[in-house]
């Protein structure tokens, strides 16, 4: 990494150097150049698209022609609020998302702790790779594999019966859905917790022990507060990914999620306005969640 050869003193500055010097003296211009591409992209492509979707939520589908009527109307929202089924679906989705998050925290913690504080550096790298690797194998194939595992006569049912116990095959059920979701998002929870735990200096543990705290107390009063932002960061993934998913509920359960209703409204009945209106629900939920998460410092732990 050798520094560039300096310009000879007194030599006429090239066009490039002059332009860059001008830029250097005008930080505002630098900022503008730096920010325009990403903000332009996000503003136009992403936020613009979201805005179009939001506008579409206020249109409605003409039942006679099945065509979208581009007039302002609150029909979709009236239906959302008036019919109890959408509340049921939203509540069910949020409940499962919370349960999945809690399950993932409980399952992820031991291995993250082991990786961060106990394992030798060599083992730590290997474990890190092993945790990441499943993320690279197709989500769909893994969910289908669980379907086979959980089905009557599948791996679990068969193994349990071989052991002489009564058969156990959750098959198509909410329990299966909870299990599969917890499985699929697990690496997204392990990694932030691992990173968070790794950052705690050893001295903290020693100091805590010096002050007379046992393992559990140290955990509760030293480790937990420090690792909380990481927990919240991981929960952003598990919560939001569960909230919006429609594939796993379709494959391993018979229940409708927010995602299923949105997907069927837009993809099957071509009622994009209603799908957009219902889509505001998970968006609002996530907006609130993200604001709380930012408060708790999760953004630094992402």
């Amino acid at each position, binding site marked *: *990494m050798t*520094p*560039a050869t*300096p310009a000879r003193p007194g030599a006429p500055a090239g066009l*490039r150097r002059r332009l860059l010097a001008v830029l*250097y003296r005008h930080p505002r211009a630098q900022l503008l150049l*730096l920010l325009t*591409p*990403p*903000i332009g*992209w996000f503003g136009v*492509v992403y*936020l*613009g*698209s*979201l805005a*179009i*979707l939001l506008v579409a939520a206020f249109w409605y589908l003409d039942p006679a022609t099945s065509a979208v009527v581009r007039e302002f109307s609150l029909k979709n929202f009236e239906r959302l609020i008036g019919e109890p089924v959408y509340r049921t679906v939203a509540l069910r989705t949020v409940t499962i998302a919370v349960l999945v998050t809690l399950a993932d925290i409980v*399952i*992820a913690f*031991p*291995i993250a*702790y*082991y*990786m961060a504080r*106990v394992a030798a550096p060599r083992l730590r*790298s290997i*474990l890190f*790779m092993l*945790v*990441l*690797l*499943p*993320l*690279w*194998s*197709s*989500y769909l194939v*893994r969910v289908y*594999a669980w379907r*086979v*595992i959980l089905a009557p*006569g*599948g*791996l679990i049912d068969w193994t349990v019966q071989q052991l002489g116990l009564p058969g156990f095959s959750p098959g198509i059920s909410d329990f299966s859905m909870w299990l599969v979701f917890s*499985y699929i998002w*697990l690496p997204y929870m392990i990694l932030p917790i691992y990173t968070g735990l790794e950052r705690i*200096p050893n001295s903290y543990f020693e100091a805590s022990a010096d002050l007379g705290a046992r393992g559990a107390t140290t955990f509760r009063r030293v480790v937990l507060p420090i690792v909380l932002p990481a927990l919240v960061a991981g929960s952003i*993934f598990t919560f*939001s990914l569960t909230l*919006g*998913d429609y594939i796993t509920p379709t494959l391993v359960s018979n229940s409708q999620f*927010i995602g299923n209703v*949105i*997907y069927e409204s837009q993809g099957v009945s071509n009622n994009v306005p209603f799908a*957009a209106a219902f889509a505001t629900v*998970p968006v609002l939920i996530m907006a609130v969640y*993200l604001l709380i998460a930012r408060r708790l410092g999760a*953004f630094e732990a*992402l």
Partner: protein
Amino acid sequence: MSRIGLRIAAGAVLAFLYIPIIVIALYAFNAERTQAWPIRQFSTQWFAAALDNPSVRDALGLSIQVGLSATLIALVLGSLAAFAVHRFRFFGRDTISFALVLPIALPGIVTGMALNATINTAGIGFTPFTIVVGHATFCVVVVYNNVIARLRRSSRSIEEASMDLGADTWQTFRHVTFPVIRSALLAGGLLAFALSFDEIIVTTFTAGTQETIPIWILNHLRQANQRPIVNVVAVFLILLSAIPVYLSQRLTRDGGAGPTSR
């Protein structure tokens, strides 16, 4: 927590992570088309069938194309945003990290529907370009996070030293700054590529008849007779992905051991 207990717990979680993967691998060698358990006969016939299948190769090619393009765009946009946020104070600075994380934090179906609506409104067709646009949008944040974390850990004094020695901004960037963030770029890029490679929901909304690997898998899992080939493809993906995962591990380790690490 006792060492033994922790070790067992960690091992159990690892086993949990790999049960379906092992099952997939087993079924890749299943002689029958139906996925009964236990497997009665083993065979390697599906490996040959998968290699022969042109649609797999096409889907793999498209996925790699899309992944590379989206990663490139994400690298550029993510770095630019990271530099802007790290180096300057301006109105709306905090909102940027919030805005960038939205594509990942909001449900994929919302992003997908929004982009789909835009594509339909703009009247452009569904092409690999539209897929790339969708992927790049949520890949930006992973690059941004990596780069800004790296920038926060490095000091500006070496840049100032470089410019004191007569280098202009571009030379400083090329010879001093870029090597510092290079590992962050590579780690972020690999993660972005991984995200794009396995993305299904946004892709179904931004693709027409094109098939990326996840879409190919979705279409073929639905046909009971194609499942054995899909299992083979999945096994192949896992084995292949060991390489970039290993690489990203090496890089984040090296990247973390910088001059100003904790």
